């Protein structure tokens, strides 16, 4: 009973919220926001219950409508999924609280539609996180693409083109993924991830299996924006409304990354597909290239949101590197980096949105003297930046640490050096931001004009969460992420 309630709270509550908004509040932004917050509150509760249930390796499994796999669809929540579900629910709640003031300043109309679409996106992402059915994941993937498309396009102007590009690439990615699922279905006759994994153990390696793996990886890689499949991301993040940027920048790519992680290590297992080592090697190379490319591009940007977008590409590179290494430590690092980066990037986008809200611009010059105008937001911005650079005790340090140790465990000194040295690259572009904030005199002297409470609250909470997640990383990693069966199967965390 509780199990079904958790899944209902995570996935169905946002869907119903979206429907209710369409029926009851399409002309009333305020009512739409309240409905959205209510349904997300239920989601949050469900995520908290999920975390409680998945501590120390617990797994929740539920068959929709009582139809068990292979015929029915299985929903499955393990520690990793519960952590990510919490991130999605919490960030979405923060964004919806924030959106009230922010959207009124940025959007001429369609504000209720924003809430409906956000809820739909949240439902889709939660669905992707919790499903154990590969085809079901495809459905949620498409829903998330379409709702994200709408959320970006709602910004109008340049956002329309950016979102169209996103839609095209997203559809291509989803199609690749679907083809991959088709190959697996042809080989195994099942769509359930765990069943496929079992059947694959007695299936001889074949070209079809390799093709399936390659298609799944490319499809999810596109959605995850792994370099060089990142083309859609910078424009989409830059031109979307601030609230959208924070939501999709915070969680969307991570969910695809988690799906990729599962495909590579829970569906396939070492030795089953000849192509698997090649796939992980290439993923590692691309991740490494992404780290360098994203950081260097971020250094060259004058537009705050664009800078943050390129920084996302770099950080997805870290996650890709972690996934490619495949030992428990590196995967724990990759998953923890999804959480750390999700929180930090959302905080940064929320503050960037605050800058747009106050000054109507988002180039770096508009940051001058920000610490006098918005001291608290600036403090949050600094905390999030430090986490992005990887300074303890913020969460970003610990994810980087586990990735580093994971590299050493895998004997990959080259990646180790890259992960460590790239800290300096991130430090450089955040340094430019700090300089723009603290040491450039604004053209007009600025007086204190902090963001309204409804916008400040999510910013502050996210920054506090970055610190809490860092200081409490032993809980997140030791009790939630590490004991999941997926990681346990891959061996012990930190060899010695």
């Amino acid at each position: 009973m509780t199990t079904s309630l958790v899944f209902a709270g995570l996935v169905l509550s946002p869907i119903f919220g979206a429907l209710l908004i369409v029926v009851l509040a399409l002309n009333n932004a305020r009512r739409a926001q309240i409905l959205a917050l209510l349904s997300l509150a239920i989601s949050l509760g469900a995520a908290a219950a999920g975390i409680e249930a998945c501590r120390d390796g617990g797994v929740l499994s539920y068959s929709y409508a009582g139809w068990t796999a292979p015929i029915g669809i299985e929903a499955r929540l393990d520690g990793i999924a519960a952590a990510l579900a919490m991130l999605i629910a919490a960030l979405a709640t923060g964004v919806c609280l924030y959106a009230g003031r922010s959207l009124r300043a940025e959007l001429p109309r369609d504000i209720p539609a924003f809430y409906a679409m956000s809820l739909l996106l949240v439902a889709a992402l939660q669905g992707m996180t919790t499903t154990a059915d590969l085809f079901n994941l495809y459905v949620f993937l498409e829903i998330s693409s379409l709702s994200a498309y709408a959320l970006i396009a709602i910004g109008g102007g340049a956002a329309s083109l950016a979102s169209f590009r996103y839609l095209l690439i997203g559809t291509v990615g989803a199609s690749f993924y679907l083809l991959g699922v088709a190959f697996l279905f042809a080989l195994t006759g099942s769509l359930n991830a765990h069943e496929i994994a079992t059947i694959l153990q007695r299936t001889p390696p074949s070209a079809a299996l390799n093709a399936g793996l390659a298609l799944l990886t490319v499809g999810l890689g596109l959605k995850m924006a792994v370099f060089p499949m990142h083309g859609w991301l910078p424009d989409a993040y830059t031109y979307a409304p601030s609230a959208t940027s924070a939501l999709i920048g915070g969680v969307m790519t991570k969910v695809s990354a988690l799906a990729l992680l599962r495909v590579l290590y829970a569906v396939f297992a070492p030795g089953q597909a000849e192509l698997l080592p090649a796939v992980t090697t290439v993923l590692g190379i691309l991740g490494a290239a992404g780290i360098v490319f994203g950081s260097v591009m971020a250094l060259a940007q004058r537009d705050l949101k664009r800078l943050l977008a390129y920084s996302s590409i770099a950080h997805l590179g870290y996650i890709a590197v972690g996934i490619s290494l495949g030992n428990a430590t590196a995967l724990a690092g990759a998953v923890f980096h999804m959480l750390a980066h999700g929180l930090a990037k959302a905080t940064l986008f929320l503050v960037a949105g605050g800058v747009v809200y106050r000054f109507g611009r988002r180039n770096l010059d508009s940051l001058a003297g920000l610490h006098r105008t918005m001291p608290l937001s600036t403090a949050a911005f600094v905390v999030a930046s430090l986490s992005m650079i990887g300074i303890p005790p913020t969460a970003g340090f610990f994810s980087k640490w586990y990735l580093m140790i994971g590299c050493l465990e895998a004997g990959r000194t080259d990646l180790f050096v890259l992960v460590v040295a790239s800290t300096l690259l991130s430090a450089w572009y955040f340094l430019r931001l700090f300089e723009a904030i603290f040491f450039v005199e604004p053209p007009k002297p600025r007086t204190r004009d902090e963001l309204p409470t409804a916008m400040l609250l999510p910013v502050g909470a996210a920054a506090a969460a970055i610190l809490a997640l860092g200081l409490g990383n032993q809980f997140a990693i030791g009790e939630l992420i590490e004991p999941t069966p997926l990681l346990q199967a891959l061996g012990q965390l930190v060899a010695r």
Partner: protein
Amino acid sequence: MIESWTPALAVLTPCLAAAVVLRLDRMPNIRESCSLTAALLLFFQVLSLLPTENATIQTPPLAMLPGVALQLRVDFFGAVFATLASALWFVTTLYSIGYMRALNEHAQTRYFASFAAAVGATIGVAFSANLLTFYLFYELLTFATYPLVAHKETEVALVASRKYLTYTLGAGVVLLGGMGVLYAETGTLDFRPGGIAELESVAPTAQYFIFASLIIGFGVKAALLPLHGWLPSAMVAPTPVSALLHAVAVVKSGVFGCVRAIAFVFGADTLTTMGASDLLAYLAAATILFGSTVALSQDNLKRRLAYSTISHLSYIVLGAALLTTTATAGAVLHLVSHAFLKITLFFCAGAIYVTTGKDKISQLAGIGRRMPLTMGAFAIGSLGLAGVPPLNGFISKWYLCLGSIQSGHTPLAVVLVVSGVLNIAYLFPVVYTAFFESSDEFDDYGEARIEMLAPLMLTALACIVFGLWPDAGNGPLSFAELIARSVQ
């Protein structure tokens, strides 16, 4: 071991002071009293935490990674450094008030807040019980001092601050790499007197990698050749910053880290087998000669002092790298002596700058007659750095020389003596110009204001007191010997 949160409170005091200072932008007098009160409070807090031979205070561990916790521990070495930093913070705050107000500097709130935060980070560095905690405060120190280097907000200051951050963050990155390998190989990051035993059985390549990373990571802040480039540039900061942070807190955190790496991570046995410590000792000797030689040709007083700092920091590294009890005691002693001596010299440079606006040595002819106390203090500092008895610099240098000879490295003792001569050669021309050349340019000037004069007299006096009674105030010498014995 006594478990208590009090060491954490000591770290929090300056950090809270920084937060309060930020809120008091419009009330400069209350703001500065807040800094002074915090400094005094911190000093007594640190004194109350001093360890005895059978009781060390540490905080309960806050587990962060398997086998590694955030933890503070007040051992003898940390206690010496923290006492030094907190005592000099009070003196420097007093001096800062005079300096900043006399020059009518902008952004004083940011200045005092960053200063307090930097001291908090330094105390954290001193009390860190393991490398992870150390790393946290070490990075915090970088970020807290960054606004101080950029203080003037001119292009020169911004360029210097970028250089500063690039060097120090780069050092942090290298340090992080070393920590990663150390952890992967031994599963611990603890500081243990005499070194981590598991490290002995690690493969030599990994040992060398860890040692090199730690020494590079700490060596940047310790301005070890060739990683010293940021220090002369950072002299663009206001003089009190150069005095406390770039002669004591920041650079000595680097040196402190080097000693931790040598004596508390590796230990004499492992290092002797590796043969890496001799290499480090000779690198330090090269830095000593390099710094002293370059100092000779600097006309800008602060830059000359900066190069002198580069050379003297390596005295400490040298002492630690020799691995004998006497040399290690000398290293700890020199950490204290140099702090008092160099802060005195910087205070004098700042007093001259505030009173006359001059910062070049060639412009100082005859100033000694107008500012006899200031220049008198400067002369004491110069003699002390050269190692002339009965000043504190002599005692530490004596231990260092003795240690070099005992460990069979007589050439290093020669380097120390030569460097003493060079010290005279680059500092005494300043005293000579000030007292024995005449110019009527300074007829209208007198001593600096009392907030600046009193601190520099006080630190100069301390140099004499610690020279005559090295164990004054239950002090440096016995602590240094205790530390040196504990790591053998």
